[in-house]
Structures are given as structure tokens and as C-alpha cells.
């Protein structure tokens, strides 16, 4: 079947559409690494939806494109290359596939259209304070009362909670001896009484994540996806679907190109030649790492297309590219820091931050620290790899 697909033509089609239809002001926000809020994401999602590309990873019968894995990676690559907002909405990427797989027909009818057309905005309520990477130990409880659950607890690191309509949430519905059991997946409207959302101030001065307090929140039992106590299975289903997440190196290469230009502009002239050459040399090494990673990404897509196991490739790509992205942001900071770091302001929302070109790299530098922490920290990735290598 996939022999019939002309991937080059497909890539060109996506690119033409992106360049023609993605609004310039949205692309400008992406290009300058300004904050991507629902305000930026929604219009583009709407455009894609109307073109039939609202859900690249969903099956056709639910309004998806039915694309194969290679097409989906190509789509993501082109989005990055054209400075379109990465189509990484929690509803679309995470929840949608779960509802398609495990939801009832009513739930599918109720929730999927709003995700697809972008009218409903979702956030993910998994992490809890003190739990670290250890999801199985979560403590938010949902007590069944007739046709409702009473939910009590606290979620943290909840991206976009402050601009979302819904949170899909892992909650503990029974005290099983095995920690992975007794967890259920609930869809919680964020306008219910008893919900408090508190922003977490992050080191880069932006508002990305929140704490969500759930205090006697009454959630209809019909909002539970799948069976009670099986939430852990649905969570794992998600993780496994995301294995190709690292195969798209286009955003990294875009960042590298931007920093190369930044270095050339910021450090122009003979007086800064030595400094410029030093940074250019470091960029070249970073580029060699990205070229290597993009080849491993290519192998990953190939493997998924053939139905082969990916082995350690996702961990290897994650480990490598997270550090390379940090390196790129360090180089950028080295280029502009002296001039711009003192101008990057602390308090988000208290008036505009400085708007000088290049100042986004001060923020990017701070933010890039998260790359070796989230999605399985580098330490966890190395543990995983070592376990495979040593067999013990």
C-alpha cells in the first residue's frame, strides 16, 4: 500500500499549503520563539481542520487523515520548517487516540469533534507533587457516589491548565496493593466548583505550567474513559503511541539555523571575529550531532513502517538531541547574553518583556534546561539504556 505513496509530492503538498495558509502573524510568533498560547494554536488548528488535516494521527473514520507514520513525521517536519505551530495539542495527540480506542460511541461523539476543530482545549492531569517520574504512586482520589465521582487531590506541572476547558486526569479509584492498579481515567471540566488553578513560576519567567487543586470536585461517572481501575493501561497506550516523537529533528535544525544567523549578525565584524569563530565551530559540532540524530529518526520511521521494534532508538535520540538543543541555546546565549540577558525581565504579565531581536534566546536558554528533565530525564534514559546494554 505505502509503495503507492509519493512522499516527496506529499511533502511538497504540505509545504505549499502551510506557506499559503498559515497566517504570517502566527508564523512570526513561532519564528521568534514567543509564547504559544491557545490564541496562537487555535486559528491554525481551525484552518487545518477545515482542510481535512485536523488530526494527522487519527483514523479516517473519526475525521483523521489516515496517514501512515512516515507521512505523519513528514507533516511534523514541514510544520517546523515553515514555522507553523507544532500540532502538539494534548487533546489531539494524547487523549483523542485513547477515546478512539477505549471510549464509548457516545464519548467519541461527545468529545472528538471539539478536539478536532479546536473548540475544546485540553490539558493533561497526570503528575502530582513529590511523585517525580513515578506515576504509579499517584494520590488524587476519586470516590464513587451514585453516578458521580468526588475527586480530591492535587496535580502539578499541568501545562496550559489556565487556558484549557478540560483536563483528562488519572485518579485513584481504589486502594489496590499493586500501585499500578486502581487508577482510572477521568475527563474533568475545568469550570467545575472546587477546582483552583495556580500558576507555577518557572525559571524562564514564562507561564507554562500550573498546579491544579481538586477539592471535592463532582465529576459525572460518564466522564470515565474505559473501565474503572484500568487507567494505567490507557496511560501506557499513550506512551507507546509516542515512540516516534523524537524522530522529527526539524525543529532542532531550524533552531540551529536560527542561531547560526544570530551569531553571524550579533558578532559581525573583525572585532568579534575570534568570538564568532569559536561559536561557529561549536555550532558545527552540534550540527553533526543533529545530522546523526536525523538519520536515527529516519531509521525509526523505517522500523515503524516495517513493523519492527525500535529498541533503544527513542532513548538514544532523546538523550542526544536534548543535550544538543541545550548546547545550541548555550551558544545563542554566549552570542547575545552580554547585551540582552540583563534586559530579559523577570515578571511575566507585568508589561511587555523587551522585544529586541535575539532576546528570545535568553528565554530559550533557560527553558532548554527542561529538555534533559522532562519526558524521562537523562538519568532515567541512561538507566534504561544501561539495562539493555548490560542485561542486568
Amino acid at each position, binding site marked *: 500500500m505505502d509503495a503507492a505513496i509519493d512522499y516527496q509530492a506529499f511533502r511538497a503538498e504540505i509545504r505549499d499549503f502551510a506557506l499559503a495558509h498559515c497566517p504570517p502573524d502566527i508564523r512570526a510568533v513561532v519564528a521568534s520563539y514567543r509564547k504559544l498560547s491557545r490564541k496562537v494554536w487555535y486559528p491554525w488548528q481551525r484552518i487545518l481542520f477545515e482542510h481535512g488535516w485536523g488530526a494527522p494521527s487519527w483514523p479516517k473514520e473519526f475525521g483523521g487523515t489516515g496517514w501512515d507514520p512516515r507521512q505523519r513525521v513528514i507533516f511534523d517536519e514541514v510544520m517546523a520548517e515553515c514555522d507553523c505551530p507544532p500540532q502538539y495539542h494534548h487533546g489531539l495527540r494524547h487523549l483523542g487516540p485513547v477515546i478512539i480506542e477505549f471510549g464509548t460511541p457516545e464519548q467519541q461523539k461527545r468529545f472528538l469533534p471539539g478536539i478536532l476543530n479546536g473548540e475544546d482545549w485540553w490539558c493533561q492531569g497526570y503528575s502530582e507533587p513529590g511523585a517525580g517520574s513515578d506515576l504509579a504512586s499517584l494520590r488524587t482520589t476519586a470516590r464513587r457516589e451514585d453516578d458521580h465521582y468526588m475527586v480530591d487531590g492535587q496535580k502539578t506541572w499541568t501545562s496550559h491548565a489556565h487556558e484549557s476547558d478540560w483536563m483528562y486526569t488519572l485518579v485513584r479509584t481504589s486502594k489496590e496493593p499493586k500501585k499500578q492498579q486502581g487508577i482510572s481515567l477521568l475527563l474533568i471540566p475545568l469550570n467545575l466548583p472546587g477546582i483552583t488553578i495556580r500558576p507555577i513560576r518557572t525559571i524562564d519567567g514564562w507561564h507554562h505550567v500550573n498546579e491544579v487543586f481538586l477539592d471535592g470536585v463532582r465529576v459525572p461517572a460518564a466522564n470515565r474513559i474505559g473501565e474503572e481501575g484500568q487507567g494505567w493501561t490507557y496511560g501506557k497506550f499513550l506512551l507507546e503511541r509516542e515512540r516516534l516523537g523524537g524522530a522529527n529533528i526539524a525543529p532542532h535544525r531550524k533552531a540551529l539555523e536560527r542561531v547560526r544567523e544570530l551569531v553571524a549578525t550579533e558578532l559581525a565584524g573583525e572585532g568579534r571575529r575570534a568570538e564568532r569563530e569559536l561559536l561557529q565551530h561549536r555550532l558545527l559540532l552540534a550540527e553533526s550531532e543533529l545530522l546523526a540524530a536525523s538519520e536515527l529518526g529516519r531509521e525509526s520511521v523505517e522500523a515503524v513502517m516495517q513493523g519492527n521494534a525500535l529498541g533503544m532508538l527513542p532513548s538514544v535520540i532523546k538523550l542526544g538531541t536534548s543535550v544538543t538543543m541545550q548546547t545550541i541555546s548555550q551558544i545563542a546565549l554566549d552570542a547575545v*547574553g*552580554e547585551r540582552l540577558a*540583563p534586559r530579559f525581565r523577570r515578571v511575566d504579565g507585568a508589561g511587555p518583556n523587551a522585544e529586541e531581536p535575539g532576546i528570545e534566546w535568553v528565554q530559550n536558554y533557560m527553558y532548554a534546561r527542561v529538555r534533559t*528533565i522532562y519526558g524521562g530525564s537523562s538519568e532515567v534514559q541512561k538507566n534504561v539504556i544501561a539495562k539493555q546494554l548490560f542485561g542486568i
Partner: protein
Amino acid sequence: MTFATTLIVSGETFEMAYRFGQVAERELAGIADAAGQAACIERLWNGIGELGWMGTAIPEEAGGAGGDLADLAAIASGAGRAGLALPVASSCGVVPALLAGNPVLPDVATGAARVAVILPGAAQDEDTGGLRIRLLNDGLTLDGVVVGVETPPNPTHALVAAEGAEPMLLLIPASSPGVQTELYQRIDGRLAADWHFSLVTVDSGWIVARGPEVPERTAAARDLGALLTCIECVSAMGALIEQTIQYLLNREQFGAPLATYQALRHRVADMYVEYENLRGITARALRAAQSGEPSWQAIAFAKLRLGEAGRAVAESAIQCHGGMGMTEELPAIRLCKRLMMAEFEFGNRVFQAARLLAADGRTSTAAAD
């Protein structure tokens, strides 16, 4: 037993400054809004004024305490350990040094005169040609924009080392016609300002110094600032390592304290080696500065090391804290941001490396040992 790093400076003055800094840090951390933070910083400034910090190295006859570099080092060390969000190196060290003998000195000592220092090479706005003094209609005129200048709250003066046909050190009242400032808070909590000088007519009373002594004095003042910044950061880094150790001891993952994982243990050992090296090279620079023959090379090397080590240790500390490392919840992470910003004060790595390589003065540094 809790581990404590070796201090670079200790004693009563250090303890006093550290206590003040700790209280200040806690107070600032509890304030969410920008206006509240600004008001708090102003209160803190008044506090250190009352304690006489700015007068530390000002002669008694000019209203100061007549102290020396050791006293300044003790204050910088104490303030640094708490990550105090005030321009200590600049206001207690650089400004009094540059204004030695000037009639404004008693006001500097009390904190009434709040002076921001604009050294040559300060960041300029893209579109302007920098800060210039020129002859215009028979008078001297200052024109230009400089940005991101560290500052006390509500600065009363800019102390500008202006390069021109004749270099000049000018003390310009902030209220002068044509002078505008925009204040904001940096990511390490300190205040900075952009200064706009629009064809400002230079009053002869503003001239603190002129001619070839200006570059000499400003270079010495910059080095003093760099040295005090290094001392601050040694303390900050020591506190950061202690707090990281505590965090790893207290926090469990997969059923064991993080402090039991060898990878993290070795990472913290590496941080500690960086700390000890920074402490050593800064102590060496301080010793040289206190000797009869101060060595700018010793300071340049210390600041170079601070640039490397400050970033490396801050990044490691954030990594050790995991997700919490990305937030501003913990004092440790606020110290990280302080370490990151210190790199850009009084000459970054590139500046220090360039002058060391240019001077080829490396063999002469052996004399400092």
C-alpha cells in the same frame, strides 16, 4: 551531620550581611507581583543604607566607615550567600571607588545618592551609535542610549564613563533635562535600567574626572566590581551546593533517597570540585588585590573561571532538582539564576579571555603565587 562548604570570607561582617540577605530573600520570595517586589527592593536598599553598607569603604571624613577591601569582601560574601537582589558590588565597591574625593560621597554613604554606573562597553541599543560626548554650539553634549544597566532603586544619578575626544567621568543627575530612565527587574531579581540621553548638555559640575586618568580609573573600578562579584558568587555557589545536597538527601525516587544514586553523587562531587576551584582562584585574586601590587590578571582569571563554573554548576543543580529545578519555588534555583547573570557583570568570559590573550601576560601571573 549537615555538610557546609568552606567559606571564602567569614567573621562578624559576613554573618551580619548573610543574616540580612536571608531575611530579604525570604521576604522577596513571598511577593508575587512586580510592584510589590519593587517596593520591597526599595525597603531593602534603605535597610542596607542604614546598616552602612555603602559607606563601608568610604573614608570616615566623607561619612563612611573607612573600611578596606576585606570589609567589602565580607559584605559581598554574606550578601552573595543569600543571593541578595541588590547591586552590592557596584554600590558598595565600584561607585565609592570612582567617586573618591567627590562631594557627593557622604550621600553615597547613606544611600541617599543612588548611583548607577555606566562603564565603557555597556550594552547599546541596536539603532543608536552608542553613547557619545560631542561639542555642540560651544558646549559639551551627551547623546545616546545604554540598556540593561544594573541599578539601585530609583536611581538619582548615572555615573558615566564616556569615551570621546577626551574621556570623561560624569555624574549626571537623573532629573536632568533630556535624561530618561526605564526600570525593570532582571531574571535574578535585581533591578536594571535603560538610560536615554537625548542631547543632554553637560554641566561642568558633573565632571568627576577627565583625560587619561578616566580609562585607568574605570578599568580599576571594573576589576574591583569583578572581584566582588566573584566573591559573591563563591558564596552563592557554596550555598547552592549545600542546598542541592539537602534536597537529594530528602527526596526519594523509586523508594530510595536521590542521594544514594551514584550518578547524582558523582555529579555533586564534580560541582564541589568546581566550587573549590572557584573559591581558590578567587581567594588568590583577593590576596593579590590586598597585596601591594594588585594583579588584573588574577581577577581576569577568576572571572573567567566564574563564567565557566557558574553556568556549569547552575545547570547541574537544576538537573539534580529535576522538575523542581525548573521552578522558582526553591532558594537554590534562585541562586542558580544569580550565578547565570553574574557572568555578564563587569566583563564576561569573552572580555576576560580576550584581554588575557592580548596581554600575553600569563607568565607574569606566576608572581601572584
